[in-house]
């Protein structure tokens, strides 16, 4: 076989092409991603070492035997391994590649082995140098990589001349392989780096596209579903997703029916109709993403056999306690494939919408709670009582101005106490003050037809209980008790200790108590529920009644409030 530098150059360049094709194919896989960054993490460094060692060995194997040596391209793997992975990786790749080359034998075995180690070191030193200078981007410069490899090959040739014996033969071989090796290795390294940075640019472009889409959807859909997970709002969100992702169609469902559908097939996928797709029902039942790509997993529209949609991605929307509240569905027509971007984006959108719906429900509950509180406050200020009290004051103003002034004072006290929040804790003394103010007015209203006895030892005045416990009970005794009978009314309020409990009895002589789910029962059960919430189930309100004779309401709270 005729060996001349030109022919050898062509052969080496051919080899390099095979080498680069392998590199290109590898670059399409995930294992290549760590190589696109100047990495400092051990697992990435390990990946870097393994990959470049393989390239290094491949460069040796693809080599061309020339007399006693091999014209080859392991320098690319060694130099780039060091350049991208740092001195340690460079040394590792060099030693691995070097041992492999040495094991193949030949006159150049030792020299070539040393060459590879030196080239790995060279790459590694350059890596350290550039990192220290803060020029990370320069690591990926194809021209610089080519130049460094060029230098590496020059070194290699010098080492060969120094180490390999006999010198004459070595000189002859070096003369023969110098130019082809310099060209093939430098060019190969530069192109390899080119593939690498192309790949990196692609990933970056994809992720920036992804981020842009995700951000656009997030910004446009912000707060829409917070206003309620219904047909109208779902339609708005579906339109935004449809416009931003460019998929064939978008649907949003709750657990039972389609809330929104926009895009291809909206003539037969109608909002308001029940879910018929098994994929969707599966996604709801098992809280998992179901993906029917139309190839591996068959997709067929469950409504119309002529539907042009060919693939669907169903992602559950998840509410409290991982409970599925609906789904979001992306479709592509039979003529188009699902892009991975839209697949990942779909899952992200589902998360975004789920949290919006959750936030909306939370706000709704907060509003309901506030409403309940307002209702309670309204109940405290019974307008009937207020206007009757004012009427009573109007009646006594002329003849008994002193009494009128007293009544206005009582009314003030009563309303001041009413302004307390129902969640507060009050002392029994404060509760009695509240009741007294109320009773002064009621006694004035009903004059002789209402008498009240209060028998509460002063020593119990400091016992704590929820505010608005006593007054509503006394008001009930008058409103639904004594004021509903034709004979004079009597109310007795007493308190006593019973073991570690404070027991308050409110008894009227009407005996008109009737257990009702609403009305009278509401105020009473509210008082009862609050005490139980506050102190536990062994406390609360009980009722005893004998028709037309008496009704007795008994309140039990702990003497020493170990309030929760």
């Amino acid at each position, binding site marked *: 076989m005729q060996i001349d530098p030109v022919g050898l150059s062509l052969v080496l360049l051919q080899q390099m092409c095979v080498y680069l094709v392998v590199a290109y194919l590898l670059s399409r896989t995930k294992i290549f991603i760590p190589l696109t960054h100047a990495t400092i993490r051990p697992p990435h460094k390990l990946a870097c070492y393994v990959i470049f060692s393989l390239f290094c060995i491949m460069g040796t194997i693809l080599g061309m035997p020339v007399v006693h040596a091999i014209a080859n391209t392991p320098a690319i793997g060694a130099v780039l391994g060091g350049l991208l992975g740092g001195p340690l990786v460079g040394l590792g790749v060099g030693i691995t590649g070097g041992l492999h080359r040495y094991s193949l034998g030949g006159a150049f075995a030792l020299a070539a082995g040393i060459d590879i180690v030196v080239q790995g070191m060279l790459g590694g030193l350059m890596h350290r140098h550039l990192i220290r200078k803060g020029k990370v981007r320069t690591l990926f410069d194809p021209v610089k990589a080519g130049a460094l490899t060029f230098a590496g090959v020059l070194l290699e040739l010098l080492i060969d001349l120094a180490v390999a014996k006999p010198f004459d033969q070595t000189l002859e071989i070096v003369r023969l392989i110098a130019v082809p090796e310099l060209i093939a290795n430098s060019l190969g390294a530069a192109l390899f780096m080119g593939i690498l940075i192309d790949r990196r640019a692609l990933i970056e472009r994809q992720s920036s596209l992804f981020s842009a889409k995700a951000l656009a959807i997030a910004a446009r859909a912000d707060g829409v579903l917070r206003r309620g997970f219904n047909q109208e709002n779902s339609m708005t969100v579906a339109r935004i997703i449809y416009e931003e992702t460019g998929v064939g169609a978008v649907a949003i469902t709750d657990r039972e029916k389609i809330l929104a559908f926009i895009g291809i097939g909206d003539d037969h996928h109608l909002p308001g109709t029940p879910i018929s797709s098994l994929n969707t029902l599966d996604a709801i039942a098992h809280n998992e993403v179901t993906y029917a790509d139309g190839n591996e997993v068959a997709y067929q529209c469950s409504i119309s056999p002529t539907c042009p949609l060919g693939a669907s991605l169903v992602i559950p929307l998840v509410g409290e306690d991982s409970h599925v509240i609906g789904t979001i569905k992306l479709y592509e027509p039979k003529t188009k494939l699902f892009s991975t971007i839209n697949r990942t984006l779909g899952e992200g959108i589902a998360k975004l919408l789920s949290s919006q719906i959750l936030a909306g429900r939370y706000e709704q509950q907060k509003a309901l709670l506030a409403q309940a509180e307002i209702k309670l406050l309204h109940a405290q200020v019974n307008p*009937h009582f207020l206007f009757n009290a004012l*009427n009573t004051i109007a009646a006594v103003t002329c003849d008994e101005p002193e009494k009128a002034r007293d009544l206005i004072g009582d009314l003030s006290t009563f309303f001041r106490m009413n302004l307390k929040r129902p969640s507060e804790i009050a002392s029994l003394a404060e509760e009695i003050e509240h009741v007294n103010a109320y009773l002064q007015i009621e006694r004035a*209203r009903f004059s002789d037809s209402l008498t009240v006895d209060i028998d509460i030892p002063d020593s119990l005045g400091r016992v704590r209980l929820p505010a608005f416990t006593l007054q509503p009970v006394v008001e009930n005794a008058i409103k639904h008790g004594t004021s509903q009978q034709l004979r004079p009314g009597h109310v007795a309020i007493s308190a006593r200790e019973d073991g570690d409990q404070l027991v308050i009895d409110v008894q009227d002589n009407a005996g008109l108590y009737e257990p009702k789910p609403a009305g009278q029962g509401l105020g009473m059960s509210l008082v009862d529920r609050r005490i139980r919430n506050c102190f536990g189930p062994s406390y609360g309100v009980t009722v005893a009644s004998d028709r037309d004779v008496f009704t007795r309401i008994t309140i039990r709270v702990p003497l020493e409030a170990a309030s929760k």
Partner: protein
Amino acid sequence: MITALIVDDEPLARKELRRVLSKADDIAIIAECSNAIDAIGVINREKPELVFLDIQMPRVSGIEMLSMLDHEKMPHIVFLTAYDEYAVQAFEQHAFDYLLKPVNQTRLEKTLERLRRNRGPQKIGELPGASQLRQIPCFGQHHVQLVRMEEVEYVASGVSGVCVVTTDGSELPTELPLHILQDRTPLLRCHRQYLVNIDFIEKINFLENGLAEIRTRRGQNIPVSRRFFPQIKERLGIL
């Protein structure tokens, strides 16, 4: 003079209304009542032209009291209420007049002015919830008893007035005339002088001349007149 009656369970409220009314020279307050049951008696006896009627009163509310009055001889009713959005709306719809407590002098003057212009009988629609009686107010010597419909066996009218006979045999006089009880209770007219509670009929004995006699579960006999017999047969499904 316009004769007026004040019905309110609060003494000071009555006093206050009397005070604001004292400026109207042509109003003569003939009585005050503290409950609806007393008021029915006073209205039937004294026939006042004008009644100021509080709504929230013990046992029988002002609205309920209306259904115990004879619509033919209905006085002018002015409702009094401290606060009741629903009621205020109802009064307007049914052409009743109403005043809010404490009573505003000017507003009261308007009410009286309207009355002075039109002293004919008040043409009013029935208030919702006022048409059917749940209970019949009966009067003892010193007390008032409200008899629930399910306690009434029959009602008889005699020389001394109308009497409600209960399932335990007590006979209680009432101010309500038979035709009002017939109209506003489920009681069935079986005779010119009798209403019977259909739930307590045990059997009907056919007599001569197309007459009959109802026997109640307690063993009381109530006459059935020829005139009302067909209606009874119809109600009981006897052909």
